[in-house]
């Protein structure tokens, strides 16, 4: 019930070198630590005592991680860029209006002024049990995500299952970035590496990100699309504040149709179809809808019942497509 934070040690390095040294030090000493960017995801979890790190390393002082620039046909977004800056940046509005729109759909204006893009693609998976009040959690045995031995959503889940925890992925920006085939740069003790955003995600609700403890995201790179058009639609009962009960991004070009989903499974969904493989457009659309439906695992852990959320997937995909077609005209 507490909203008091447990105490922790707080450090705020001011450049990447300092950060590297610090992380190295903590790793060698075996200290427990967590990064915080805007803190809008992590602070509520700390308050609800979902986890209690000994050390909080704040990235907010590292200006090298902020900002948006254009290099040739690539737009590079610093991981610490706030969602508000992202949504209002001229380059983003010009080349990736749908990304601006999705960023704009996150949480609330006050939160977007603080929340970062890095934090958003790294946002912790949610579930109606783990994101509960501590009092409610107290009356249940701890679940897998809380280092326990049971899942309250999928009662029959047991250790050894392929997917242990079904806490759902909720980032609003990730589906759009996935369709834009964004790459992310990861910095760790082993230096830098670059991966596709899609490779960041694992199908595990406990921690769905394939990062090592010492690794963090420094930037997100997106190529300016040539002839693709995108659309993002978010299912939420209110037009503000709510996490996506379902989020559907659609990307359409002369040759391809692709769809990315959020708000459902532990990892985002990503489906592609090549127009030339189908007899006609409608057939392709219905195939991609089928793929999405087959992927979607919904549970009653949201405002909307599972069946409804699922049934909205094809509706949103078709809406996305018709919106794109309408705009093209």
């Amino acid at each position, binding site marked *: 019930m507490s909203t008091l934070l447990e105490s922790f040690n707080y450090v705020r390095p001011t450049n990447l070198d300092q950060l590297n040294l610090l992380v190295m030090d903590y790793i060698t000493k075996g200290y427990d630590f967590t990064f915080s960017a805007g803190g809008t995801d992590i602070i509520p979890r700390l308050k609800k005592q979902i986890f209690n790190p000994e050390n909080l390393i704040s990235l907010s002082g590292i200006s090298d991680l902020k900002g948006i620039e254009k290099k040739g046909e690539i737009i590079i977004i610093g991981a610490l860029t706030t969602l508000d800056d992202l949504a209002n940046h001229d380059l983003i509005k010009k080349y990736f209006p749908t990304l601006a729109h999705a960023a704009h759909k996150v949480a609330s204006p006050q939160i977007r002024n603080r929340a970062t893009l890095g934090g958003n693609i790294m946002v912790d998976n949610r579930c109606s049990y783990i994101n509960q009040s501590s*009092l409610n959690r107290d009356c249940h045995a701890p679940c897998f995500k809380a280092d326990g031995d049971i899942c309250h959503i999928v009662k029959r889940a047991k250790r050894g299952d392929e997917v242990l925890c079904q806490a759902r992925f909720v980032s609003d920006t990730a589906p759009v970035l996935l369709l834009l085939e964004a790459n992310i740069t990861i910095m760790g003790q082993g230096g830098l590496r670059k991966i596709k955003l899609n490779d960041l995600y694992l199908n595990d609700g406990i921690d769905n990100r394939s990062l090592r403890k010492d690794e963090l995201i420094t930037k997100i790179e997106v190529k300016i699309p040539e002839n693709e058009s995108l659309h993002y639609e978010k299912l939420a009962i209110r*037009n503000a*504040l709510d996490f996506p009960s379902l989020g559907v991004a659609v990307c359409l070009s002369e040759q391809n149709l692709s769809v990315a989903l959020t708000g459902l499974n532990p990892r985002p969904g990503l489906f592609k179809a090549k127009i030339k493989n189908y007899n006609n457009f409608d057939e392709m659309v219905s195939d991609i809808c089928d793929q999405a439906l087959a992927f979607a695992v919904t549970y009653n852990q949201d405002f909307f019942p599972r069946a409804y959320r699922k049934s909205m997937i094809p509706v949103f995909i078709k809406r996305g497509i018709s919106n794109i077609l309408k705009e093209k005209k």
Partner: protein
Amino acid sequence: MVDLTKGYPDKGYKIIGKPVPLIDSRAKVMGQALYTDDIRLHNPLTIKILRSPYPSANILSLDTKDALALKGVKGILTGADFKNTFGVLTISKDEPAIARDVVRYEGEPIAAVAAETETIAEAALKLIKVNYEITEAVLDSKTALKPTDRPLHPELNKENNLHKKVLQEFGDMEQGFSEADVVIEKRFRFASINHGFTEPHATQVEIDNKGNITVYSATQVPHYLHMAMAEVLEIPEHNIRIVKPHLGGGFGGKSDPFPHEMIAAKFALDLGRNVKIKFTREEVFFSHHGRHQTDLTMKLGFSKEKGITALGLDTLIDGGAYGSFGIVTTYYNGVLLQGPYKIPNFRFHVNRMYTNKPMCGAMRGHGGVNPRFASEVLLDMACAEIGLDPAETRLKMIHKENTLTTNEFRITSVGLQNGLKEAMRRTKWHEKYGKLPFGKGIGVACGFFISGSALPIHWNKLPSSTVRMTIDHDGGVTVYSGATDIGQGSDTMLAQMAAEVLGQSLGNIKVISADTRITPVDLGSYSSRVTFMAGNASRNAAIRMRKILVEAACALLDIDPPKYEKPEKSKDFFRQGGLKPDFEQGFLGPNPDYSDGFIFEDGLIRSENHNQSVTFLEAVEKALEFEGILQTSGTYRAPKLGGKFKGAGAGLSPSYSFTAFIVEVTVDSETGFIKVDKATCAHDCGFPLNPLAVNGQIEGCIHMGLGQALMEEMVYDNGATQNPSFLDYKIPSAFEQPVVDIVPTFSDDSEGPFGAKEAGEGILAPIIPAIANAVYDAVGIRLTQLPMRPDRVIFALEKAKKDKGATS
């Protein structure tokens, strides 16, 4: 700014009827207004409450040793420390400050810690060891009806978990249904909803060296809290002073005495220290006291010629673990259907059940909201079936002035007809209803509410409200009232009364309210009673003051004082309260007449006959010569009302408000989303004392009704609150709020202060069925379950499609 007085009669008042900002707005807009948690007492202890994680359990043992041993912990209270239970109603004092032996809901207080800091208090909670024996919980009201050998409150009911049963029947139901052209029966289901006020509960207690305590608390009912606290703590009331600081919203959710208030006071007394407690948002949801979850079956008989011929309902309301206002709620579920239309044959049967869930109590529109939804939807269905226009039909059926309802409510002023007509004109009702394209719809519904309960909760012969008024030697006027400004603006209303009668500017009136040491008893802010009752009392105090000043002015001018008429009881039944101005005993009745041949304005008191004047200050000084101090009291006493049958007192009010809504919606038939585009409201609150405040109440009610209609619901899983946060409990945002058009609507209530009636609650109920009726007009489905979530819309649309397929 548009002229908000447009459309209302000009009665020549200077301050009454004018749009004036609430008098505490400036302090609030600067962040200077102090709410309970903003007060800084000297070195207070912080209190934290340990709450039960189980909805139903026996407390086998409770070990507080380790917690007490923690450095900085000053005291721990458990159920054993409180002998007396309490409750807002004398007839159901069933709630302990801390659970003793038995836990009845998840979140119930098990122990409380007072410590030097919040961190220590938190840490101490974790050291308290409780050994629970988990027992089978009663999770819904249907199960609660079944016989059991382990009821929640065996002291009240040994058989099952029925808390209160009310059955009233008027007329002849069978006869009524036989006269009907259509008889429709439907089941409805309503989720429990929360008040969602923004300021969480908070209490601070200051103790002096004689052991007297001052309790600063976010409460709507200082008076009831005062009484309950004296009883629970077993100390005289005069040792307790209750003060209500600025309050961040109540809506009924702060109208009970609360466990934390008892706990805080007890700690202060036991430890001799100042203490404070503030709830987290979760704790607010765990404490709840919101609108009852309701299952209701209603049957309507309707005749083309006669209108409603019979209405019957069977209702089960889930009260949760304790009584709260529940007995009143039980009655209100029936009696508040007695308007706005005549129902010749009427029967209602309501059971309130105890269950192992957070208790439900009073919430804006108390008890009347859910049955109103049902009746207005059924009425709409009847009209659709017979092919009548639902707006015209309602217009014809609205009570005429000065009638008696079937259950003997006295209906006096009614001004809704003109308002509804104007709303129909403005919305182009006839051009739209039934004629809009698929997905767009328009709907209508009406409602009715009390202007204060005529009978007090604790039976006594005192006036319903009393106001004290003083004038300083320099002419400053102070109004002292026990009425509780919870943000609705009652302080402003009290000041307006005094300013108008005494010809003063609003700035010259100070209001001191809701402080039991200083202000006279007022029963509190609930049942929309404050404007009618405290308003009349303030007006009457001012009229008495005026008489003193007029006499002083006459002495100064050397003229004869006016002759005041003796009060005389009106013979007219509908004006039983209608006494002539009574300057000696308190003015009881009709307005506007306090004309005494003098004009109070521009700092002068002028005799109209003699065209001579003295300054207000001269009169004050002269009056002080007689009296030493200038002080009056004014009272309001509700007239004797009602029938002679059992339960006749429920819902009696000196006057009733009437509301109509026309709502326009867009329904997305693919996603099931309902968007309320526009709400046009006609609300008869008599004469609006302050159109700015009245409009604010209307828009606020629309917001809250919208929430209940479309998204708000308390979700429980095995008795555990699933959505105790503003993220998961969905309160509509600015985006969802519709465009609002307010149609000036009025009547002249001869007993309300300057003709005013209720404007805070009744508005809420009809917006919800108006939305449902508009959804029917848009896509042809009848929704019978709240909230009308998109998935329910889709389900209903699919069912309608199937049914259609089956018949064609």
